């Protein structure tokens, strides 16, 4: 969870989300355009790096498979950028095939700003700091580079089953 | 004693615990090897669950001076991980892990030698004690200020002291015993602001603190007071802005915000 800073309050009228491939030409969604995509309901466990696991959380959002469908890229790594300036890195093949969503509802309620609303990335199979709150763009990278917390002590990958918490 | 932080975790034993307000508890802890502390310093309390999960929280110390006993007043935050335990479950004789004394910034010492941070503090080479001291506290934010008052009284210090204290109701006043005693402390003036309910016969209708109240209660900027301001983030930011507006040098204002997660 990227929560350490002022909480950004983003109106859905202002909100937009982009995927930026190596061509530099972003594919961008407004809030209405995101809502017009195929919305999925996801029930999953989430793993916090500070030892707790929350079982069976329910989210609604758009799969990254849907959002990447028209994006051409040959690069393998992604940097997620958030409103508020934080970043976190994830390999592309861990975001596709039903592994990640741009979520805007949690347990039946719209995501409030404290919990990353209006929309956050969720990547449930990785530690939850990878599930970037207030996500605004995914930028493709040729090589894996550490994001904000990964530069400062957290593991570059963050797999809970391997207990990849810290460097 | 110096302002330097101390790195050791020590064992503290609870020697007294009793209700301070309807939501807060006064806890006196005897800390093994405690080196004494300066007024305004804080300490960390670490609780460890049987599964190894530990949580650390900072608390201001309401006492000052040599001796191994520290006086805390802990307000219960209903969703907190640490404060509900300290307020509801901790018993006399229980042991706690204590780290401190901590912090050399939000502190006041009687009879101070020219302050270490004096040049950056708008004070030039004037000794800290030569400037009047304005304490401003909101709710449990009065705790470190109480230590400063006690330190001031214990040293029979002649620095003019004022406390402006904002609380919800008379029941919510922390350390009313210390504050009620100002008849014996000619160099201290206490102004209480009740925001929800005032005592019977109180001349002022309960209301939130205003810029006008601050202006009429605190030492004017022309007296060049050192200001210690402690409370919730909103309280601190609101009052600090008024002070700067009223001509106080921002470098003369020291703040301590309380988090909401304890």
């Amino acid at each position, binding site marked *: *969870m*990227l*929560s*350490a*800073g*002022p*909480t950004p309050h983003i109106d859905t009228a202002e909100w937009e989300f982009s995927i930026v491939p190596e061509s530099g030409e972003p594919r961008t969604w407004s809030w209405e355009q995101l809502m017009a995509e195929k919305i999925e309901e996801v029930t999953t466990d989430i793993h*916090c*790096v*500070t030892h707790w696991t929350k079982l069976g959380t329910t989210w609604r959002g758009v799969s990254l498979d849907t959002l990447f469908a028209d994006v051409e890229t040959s690069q393998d790594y992604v940097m997620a950028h958030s409103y508020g*300036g934080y970043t976190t890195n994830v390999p592309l093949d861990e975001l596709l095939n039903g592994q990640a969503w741009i979520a805007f509802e949690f347990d039946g309620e719209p995501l409030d700003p*404290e919990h990353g609303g209006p929309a956050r990335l969720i990547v449930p199979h990785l530690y939850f*700091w990878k599930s970037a709150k207030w996500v605004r763009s995914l930028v493709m990278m040729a090589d894996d580079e550490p994001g*904000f*917390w990964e*530069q*400062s*002590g*957290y593991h570059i990958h963050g797999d809970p089953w391997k207990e990849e*918490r*810290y*460097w | 004693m110096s*302002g*330097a*932080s*101390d*790195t050791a975790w020590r064992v503290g034993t609870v020697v007294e615990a009793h209700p301070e307000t309807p939501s807060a508890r006064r806890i006196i802890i005897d800390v093994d090897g405690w080196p004494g502390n300066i007024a305004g310093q*804080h*300490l*960390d309390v670490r609780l460890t669950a049987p599964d*190894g999960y*530990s949580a*650390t929280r*900072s608390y201001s110390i309401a006492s000052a001076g040599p001796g191994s006993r520290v006086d805390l007043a802990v307000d219960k935050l209903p969703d907190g991980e640490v404060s509900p335990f300290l307020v509801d479950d901790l018993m006399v004789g229980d042991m706690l892990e204590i*780290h*401190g004394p*901590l*912090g*050399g*910034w*939000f502190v006041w010492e009687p009879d101070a030698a020219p302050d*270490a*941070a004096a040049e*950056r503090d708008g004070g030039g080479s004037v000794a800290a004690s030569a400037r009047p001291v304005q304490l401003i506290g909101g709710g449990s934010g009065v705790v470190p200020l109480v230590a400063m008052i006690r330190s001031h009284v214990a040293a029979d210090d002649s620095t003019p002291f004022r406390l402006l204290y904002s609380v919800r109701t008379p029941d919510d006043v922390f350390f009313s015993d210390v504050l009620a005693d100002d008849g014996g402390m000619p160099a201290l003036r206490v102004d209480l602001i009740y925001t929800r309910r005032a005592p019977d016969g109180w001349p002022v209708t309960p209301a939130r603190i205003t810029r006008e109240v601050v202006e009429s209660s605190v030492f004017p900027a022309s007296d060049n007071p050192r200001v210690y301001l402690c409370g*919730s*983030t*909103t309280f601190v930011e609101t009052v600090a802005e008024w002070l700067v507006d009223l001509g106080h040098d921002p470098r003369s204002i*020291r*703040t*301590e*915000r*309380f*988090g*909401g*997660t304890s």
Partner: protein
Amino acid sequence: MTHLDGNSLAGVLSELFRFDPTTASARCAGCGAIDVLARAMVWEGTPGTVVRCASCDNVLATIVESDDKLWLNFSGITAVEVRR
């Protein structure tokens, strides 16, 4: 989420420094402002603590704590002044 003052860093940083660094002056790499760390803005939480410049909001430092280790990133500070 609200923030705290740099004062609150005294505990965790005492594990790294022999002096109290909250009274030390530091220069922000973002805007060049020089001020004591005690005046910085501190957000505590998961995954870690973020320290921001009170003048320009630039991230001065981060602190990540595990049960047995501590990581300090001071990359937003160009220099710290320490009294000898």
